[in-house]
């Protein structure tokens, strides 16, 4: 198939970017979206032009590196997948495809389609862990039974890959889904109880400092999340935050 691509090009963080048109022929339906971009890049290199830079690594939907806004949707038209799992069979011959980086104040563009997501790391650094040293002699793993339902719900929250699609999908560029996933995981597990109040307060404070917007419950994040992280996590984080505030 033949495709008409409109792709965001930006030399570096300080440069002004723009959309650039490319036409690409010979795309096959069983190629992945990123393989389509690989082919375009090979063409650009052979013409002596600079290839389009985009973030990607595992190409199997788990590392969370790839991050493209395709026709206005994070990770493209399909649901429950990342861009690297998107295949060209989701498109038709002659389609125009608009490809942009994540758009959010807290995710500045580094080059072309690559954004800086270190704000997510800093939110995790503020409290996304259980403070236990590596002693090799903590209590036996089976000493504290955890109800299967609770363990499974914690796992569902923990499955977040930190890609940033939730932020890109949100009209407020809010990071509530991302932050609440980690808060929920530990709020659900007995091991996370001790630091629960500090954790939610510190992580929310960092989230606000980074310049992410607030949550207005539109739910776009949940729809675009490639791992199906539920909005219930945001509700749980709000509860945790409220009860932490009462404790002072």
């Amino acid at each position, binding site marked *: 198939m033949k495709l008409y691509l409109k792709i965001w090009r930006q030399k570096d963080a300080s440069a002004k970017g723009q959309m650039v048109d490319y036409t690409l022929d010979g795309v096959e339906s069983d190629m992945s979206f990123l393989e389509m971009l690989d082919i375009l890049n090979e063409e650009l290199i052979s013409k002596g032009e600079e290839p389009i830079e985009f973030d990607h*690594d595992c190409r199997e939907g788990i590392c969370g590196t790839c991050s493209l806004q395709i026709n206005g949707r994070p990770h493209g038209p399909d649901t429950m997948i990342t861009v690297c799992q998107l295949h060209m069979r989701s498109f038709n011959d002659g389609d125009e495809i608009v490809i942009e980086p994540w758009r959010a104040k807290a995710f500045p563009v580094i080059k072309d389609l690559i954004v800086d997501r270190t704000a997510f*790391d800093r939110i995790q*650094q503020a409290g996304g862990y259980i403070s236990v040293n*590596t002693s090799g002699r903590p209590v036996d793993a*089976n000493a504290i039974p955890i109800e299967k339902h609770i*363990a499974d719900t914690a796992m569902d929250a923990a*499955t977040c890959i930190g890609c940033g699609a939730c932020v890109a999908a949100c009209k407020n560029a809010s990071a509530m889904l991302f932050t609440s996933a980690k808060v929920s995981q530990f709020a659900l597990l007995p091991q*996370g109880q001790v630091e629960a109040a500090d954790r939610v307060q510190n992580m929310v404070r960092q989230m606000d400092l980074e310049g992410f917007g607030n949550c207005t419950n539109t739910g776009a994040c949940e729809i675009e999340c490639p791992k199906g992280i539920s909005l219930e996590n945001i509700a749980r984080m709000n509860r945790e935050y409220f009860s932490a505030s009462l404790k002072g």
Partner: protein
Amino acid sequence: MGVLDSKIPSGPLADKWTKHKNEIDLVNPANKRNIDIIIVGTGLAGGSAAATLAELGYNVKTFCYQDSPRRAHSIAAQGGVNAAKNYQGDGDSVYRLFYDTVKGGDYRSRESNVYRLAEVSSNIIDQCVAQGVPFAREYGGLLDNRSFGGVLVSRTFYAKGQTGQQLLLGAYGAMNRQIQRGKIKSYTRHEMLDLVLVDGKARGIIARNLVTGEIERHSAHAVVLATGGYGNLFFLSTYAMGANVMAAWRAHRRGAFFANPCFTQIHPTCIPVSGDHQSKLTLMSESLRNDGRIWVPKRKEDAIAIREGKLKPIQLSEEERDYYLERRYPAFGNLVPRDVASRAAKERCDAGFGVNKTGEAVFLDFASAIMRYGKEKALTSGMKDPDNNTIRELGEKIVEAKYGNLFQMYEKIVDANPYKTPMMIYPAVHYTMGGLWVDYNLQTTIPGCYAAGEANFSDHGANRLGASALMQGLADGYFVLPYTIGDYLSDDIRTGAIPTDSPEFDAAEKDVRDRMEKLMSGTGIHSVDYYHKKLGKIMWNKCGMSRNEKDLKEAIKEIAELRKDFWENVKIPGSPDSKNQELEKAGRVADFLELGELFAKDALERKESCGGHFREEYQTPEGEALRDDENFKFVSAWEYKGEPSAAKLHKEDLVYENIKLKTRSYK
């Protein structure tokens, strides 16, 4: 023993680690504050080592090429992590895990290291649960286990099909806690380009800031390389696109011996190649072999009809199918080790029984598991005489709960529903058992330079068992390296900070800049990927699942020619002074082009078949691997001497005091 001193502690096997920990030197807490450690790579091994060393009080600097430590490729490990907990009461023990690992590795690993690995395995589970890793649990609230290839017990702990992700996020959390305390300084989007030696000791690295293109100098009292494996040498593999051998290869060029480069794991259950555009391959977890049955048609006509789309696999009756693993290996069936399963698939496909368009795929079928689970569920739900459709529906739900995310991944890539028609799979490069040679302390042949996780060679011999990579990465990082590195650093308590303005740093930086300039000066027309794909084809066709003398000799010649062409002609647009993904790739492929030749040379020299290394000249009449313990019971450790063809072989003889060497049989 020659120049290789493995430093295996004396005494009985079971006491070695405890004795060693008691005898090695420690650094007192106040002095740890004056000691810097660089860790390159932030996957399970690097991340866990960084967190633990920082907890102990050392100043740690971590480096990763990804935009966050959380994205290291450990995250993609699906199936699980082994530990000798014996929670299932099925007779597991430290000894049995040790024995299975040595046997699975086809008797080419070091006994003492493997025993230590088995010994600390259960601590890993305790540690991770304490960190809040949400492992799968049973209804009683206790941890669940499943079984993996090459073993007869259930010792694998898992978190859905995302165990690597959860363990890595645990280590990442532990790192974050230390970053927040200021004990770890994390450098992301940075790549190590060289190792700096001062007075023969590893004292720092030269790194490139991948965003700005800046070349930076970083010093430390010790350098830990936890940079994973080198399977991307094959271009197509299940590795992340950026995975590379640069850090390990740079260290090799500076004096670290490279061990067993030809020991590569080709994983049996991956999604087959669909076309020339393919950029990477996707693994389907080995856990699927708990319930999936592997088969090809019995008759060649049927295989051809399936390839041409004239026949559907579900139309073939049980009698018309060849469940070749169950036929050849009745004791282990579909759960034979990976090397055995991969070779058996290749054997059937080479014989003309492959089932996809290219003839390079076999079926992985869940129909009988779906019916078996469905019947059980119907019985426990009190249904009397349910029809087949009801049973199938119930069974599909159970299979979905177990493997849902893997089935979804398959469907997205292949566009076929694996609940209704069998999956098609084929082997793909997945892991490298070879790596930097290390002694019992995980130190390479360069003092102060350590290697952990997949980057070293020590624990898996010639074939790694499933769910053992996560175990080894975390064992090295949480429980081994933090102790053993202290023994070396105890001499450095009065050294003070290592300056970066020394002639050694000047020289290393100059080397790096010269090399980049040379890369950028290529005058040809082909991109980096062009060369990488060519290298991959040579490797896959001549150094892949089966090898022979003629092919290996050709490969050595072809790789050397390709390397020459690459250095003269590779075309890299843009400039080195800014973000430049092509330049990043070029540096990595340049090293693969050297390693590839050494790989083939190692495979040529090892005139036996063992584990993942199958030499066609050395096989039994039934086509099983023929090991030669008399002549090849050693680790090949290669010393860099300029061109790969000049590399010098050193042998570490493997001594088995606690295990009797046997022909590996899974029949």
